[in-house]
């Protein structure tokens, strides 16, 4: 029964990973930017939630109506001020700019908040759980998993059903043709970046409620998000969920045997997927080609 429990807990943890990863996946799918500051932006979201909930004296969930719009605006600003400009300098510049941004954020947080680990107060939900037979399911983990599913479904619907989604898909397929047919690319990019940062902030709130965070947590978050994206397949939102779940199950099941090897197992799983199926499990052929840098082997 321990193993069944481990698998279920792992799946729920995987939902959290998918929630972190979907913004990264979206940014890459549309703008072709791997945002190396993605994890740090999630940590920023957690800190902002901490500040807001302390200031207003409310549980952390009540800060979301303020936090998410703020993160959306911050994402738009980053796109307009940094990422969009970096894109004009070729494909290398965004990598350098987002890495520089990551270094800045981590150290600004150190200055502003010291490197003490913090946690968020999730109220009654954080501690509540229910029983399924002999398995205990935490409401918090379940909430993270369901939120991930809701966010992914919402994004999928937005992308496939709305006119905004059509513009995004057209831009993602072929930037120049999209411009030719009159799509204003910059607002599209700005809104996509806004959504990506908002999902990162939301994920940051869950991370902060489930565990603790400090200014340097961002790099680890980035690595987990990245692994979920690659394992699931680049550019596939539901693939990201599957990738996250596979990672979560691996981590918890291996952790059940020996906690010290849990994260190592996830990293090795990632490297194994990279060996066997470099494009990930559910990737579109076009996206895989782009990730592999159109590099003709040989």
């Amino acid at each position, binding site marked *: 029964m321990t193993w069944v429990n481990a698998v279920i807990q792992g799946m729920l943890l995987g939902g959290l990973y998918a929630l972190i990863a979907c913004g990264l996946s979206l940014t890459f799918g549309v703008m072709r930017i791997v945002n190396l500051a993605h994890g740090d932006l999630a940590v920023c979201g957690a800190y902002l939630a901490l500040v807001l909930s302390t200031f207003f004296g409310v549980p952390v969930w009540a800060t979301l109506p303020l936090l998410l719009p703020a993160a959306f605006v911050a994402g738009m600003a980053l796109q307009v001020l940094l990422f969009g400009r970096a894109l004009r300098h070729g494909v*290398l510049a965004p990598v*350098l700019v987002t*890495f520089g941004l990551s*270094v800045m954020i981590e150290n*600004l947080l150190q200055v502003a908040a010291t490197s003490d680990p913090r946690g968020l107060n999730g109220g009654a939900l954080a501690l509540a759980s229910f029983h399924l037979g002999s398995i205990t399911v935490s409401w918090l983990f379940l909430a993270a998993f369901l939120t991930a599913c809701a966010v992914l479904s919402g994004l999928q619907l937005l992308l496939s059903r709305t006119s905004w989604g059509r513009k995004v898909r057209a831009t993602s397929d072929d930037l120049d043709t999209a411009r030719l047919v009159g799509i204003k690319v910059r607002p599209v990019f700005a809104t996509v970046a806004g959504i990506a940062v908002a999902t990162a902030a939301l994920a940051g709130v869950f991370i902060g409620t489930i565990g603790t965070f400090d200014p340097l947590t961002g790099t680890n978050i*980035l690595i987990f998000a990245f692994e979920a994206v*690659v394992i699931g397949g680049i550019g596939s939102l539901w693939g990201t969920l599957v990738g996250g779940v596979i990672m979560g199950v691996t981590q918890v099941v291996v952790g059940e045997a020996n906690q010290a090897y849990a994260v190592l197992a996830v990293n090795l799983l990632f490297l194994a997927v*990279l060996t066997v199926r470099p494009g990930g499990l559910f990737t579109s052929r076009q996206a895989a080609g782009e990730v592999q840098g159109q*590099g003709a082997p*040989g």
Partner: protein
Amino acid sequence: MTRDTAIGSRDAEPSVTPVEVSRWSRTASAFTGACVVAVLILAVVPYVAGGPAEQPLITLLTFIAMASLWNLLAGFSGLTSFGQQAYIGVGAYGLYLVAAHGVNPFAGILLAAFVAAVVSLPVSALVLRLSGGYFAVATLVVATTFQIIATLSPSVGGTTGVSVPGLAGYGDVLREALTYWATLIVAVASVAGVYLLVRRTFGLDARAVGSDPVGAASSGVRVGRIRLLAYLAAAGGAGAVGALIALQTLYIEPTSAFSIQYSVDMLFMVLIGGMGTIEGPIVGALVLFALQETLSAYGAWYLVIVGGLAVVTTLVAPRGLWGWASERLGWSLLPVGYRVRPPAPPGRPASPGRAAPLAPPDPPRT
């Protein structure tokens, strides 16, 4: 070293005036001479100035080596690895392992470099499948994985770490002097090695791969082989640097041996100095050294400034300080491209190289 050639033969049509194509110049000769003198002066520092001068110079020379090697990867070949600390760590632990088996630690530097290059071979098969940001994060994952493996290996001290063995026979003065000389050799070898490598066809191929892999492949460049060579060379160099850092600190533990700070430093130096030039990383190393000496008291603010400068440089001056200076002043102290001079008008000597270089050091266009 001079490779002056004249294109256009005497039998050509009269309308075709011969242009002079050259790579080397008088400035470059003078600068190379100055470099040799500088290295000789640096080599006698332990006799003249002793320990107090050695320590900062060791830091600076380590920076120069790291920057030159990262430039080979990112600046020339377009492989922005943020996981070179994997090989710095492997080099440090490699030094520990060979020294624990009785090899002289200073001779062990070479072995550590070899170990790092060997380790990088299977890793390259994985990470070189990716490019751009995905390559960057995959290399970061590899570095994290190595760090966890080191943490879980009791034979190399686990989380606590190990001290470098085999140094008991050396007095402090001799040990520091030997470390200094070893650092000098590795720094000179990195700069000279990268320079000689990119002057060959490899340099042209690597820059082609860096700016447009598809175009390079379709022109017959063996993209995979170029990337592999750059990756192996940079990993071996990082291994040597890691061994040097172990000799400087005398203690190896996973968190600092695999610290991402090395990647931050490398990125910063190469960006500020100028990617894809030989001189740029040296300029960048001097800038980082100066910043560290003046600002490190401010702790995290120092790194905020470092990160901010990296962002601003990428967006505003993507060719870095050296790119900016060489453009303004027409300098090319260690040329990797060729210059074309307009034909000399009759009765006057050839104009002394004011013309634009034929193949300027590539802007980090990629």
